[in-house]
């Protein structure tokens, strides 16, 4: 067994699972609301029960999203010339041949962008959701909230499956980070050379 490097701590792993499960629940119930899917309503035990699941899963999701700020926000706001090079080559995802990717830190440029987009969209969808849930007697606000909630929903249903694909099938060897938090040191040197230099490995 080769030497392992710890990329994610236990609290980070648990938090990511909480976020993933609540997010998937929210998406399923969200589609149930959007298209009056009676089967989905039945799955959650009726109209009111599904609303309760959706609302409280939303609370869990946003709390866990805020918790990620301790893990990723600083990194996601740090950019240099390598990020620009990464963007220009599209992260190497769009070509069949192996391409030399610019050296990346703990998160690559795409991951940093993804994080910021999800953070922003998460805050927007939670705020609008809270308004739909709690505010009564303000018609204009209700209209705007539903519109914004749906726009953010579309962003989520596009971004989240792509994120899941990139974290599993598209990049073999990365999914174990979500389970164990560790990766083999050679793999880490290949993927996150700058971060490895930083921690002296």
């Amino acid at each position, binding site marked *: 067994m080769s030497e392992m490097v710890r990329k994610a701590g236990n609290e980070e792993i648990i938090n990511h699972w909480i976020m993933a499960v609540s997010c998937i629940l929210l998406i399923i119930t969200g589609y149930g609301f959007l298209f009056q899917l009676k089967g989905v309503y039945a799955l959650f035990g009726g109209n009111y029960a599904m609303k309760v699941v959706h609302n409280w899963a939303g609370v869990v999701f946003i709390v866990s999203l805020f918790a990620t700020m301790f893990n990723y926000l600083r990194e996601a706001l740090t950019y240099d010339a390598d990020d620009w090079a990464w963007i220009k080559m599209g992260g190497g995802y769009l070509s069949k041949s192996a391409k030399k990717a610019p050296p990346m830190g703990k998160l690559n440029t795409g991951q940093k962008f993804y994080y910021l987009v999800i953070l922003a969209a998460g805050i927007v969808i939670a705020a609008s959701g809270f308004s739909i849930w709690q505010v009564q007697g303000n018609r204009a606000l209700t209209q705007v909230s539903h519109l914004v909630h749906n*726009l953010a929903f579309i962003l989520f249903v596009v971004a989240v499956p792509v994120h899941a694909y990139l974290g599993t099938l598209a990049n073999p060897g990365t999914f174990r980070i979500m389970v164990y938090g560790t990766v083999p040191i050679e793999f880490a040197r290949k993927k996150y050379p700058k971060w490895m230099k930083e921690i002296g490995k």
Partner: protein
Amino acid sequence: MTNRTNKRKAILVTPEVCIGCRGCQTACKAWNQLPGMKTKNTGTMQNPPDLEPVDYNMIRYSEVPSETNPVRWLFVSRRCMHCDDAGCMRICPAPGALFRTKEGAVAFDKDKCIGCKLCVAGCPFDVPRYDKDGKIAKCHLCYDRLAEGMQPACTKTCPTGALRFGDRDQLIAQAKQAGYGKIYGEADLGGLGTIFAFKDAPKLYGYADKPNIPESVIFWHNVLKPLAVIGLGGALAGALLHYVAIGPHKDDDEEVKKS
């Protein structure tokens, strides 16, 4: 009032003969067991100031003096319009929460309402209200009375015929015969279930010339809903296509040795 055909029913409002007695408001409260409510005097006879969860209908008092009539005071009933193309029904996410009765009314089932307030956002007339339990509350054309062959409480009690209940076609024909050229709600939104024989412009009574379902709701319904499916499908199809056509990420091995 024992007509039980499937023909669409309606309430014809004739403001001209309304005396502003508010008997309709009281009868509605009595039948639907709605409690009274403390309101504030805002310098008008209008009370309550607007529809409330415990006020399914109301008389709007508009003071609109004209050149020939310095004390023109218009009374008009305000309530759910039971639109044929109902914005609330289009977008309600909860199955069975809003339903169409065989008389053409838009009725509701509080047990199935989830309190999302989409009906508030979608109503062209700002009618639906939410009660203290967060459930929809509005006029339901007394569909429980209609089922027993009776007419709604408000029309039953109206002493002047300002509110009249009956077959929609007949009411329109009668109003036209009585000299009202244009009936408000005859064709708007697929035809309203509360129709008005206005003598003056609808605006003077507080009604929009052309009522519409809010554009944000149309956009939500016609654009965002399909996009939510296309978006998810596209993302999944894109991932599959990428996996098949390009395949998983590969790194340059030379790069690895150097770093």
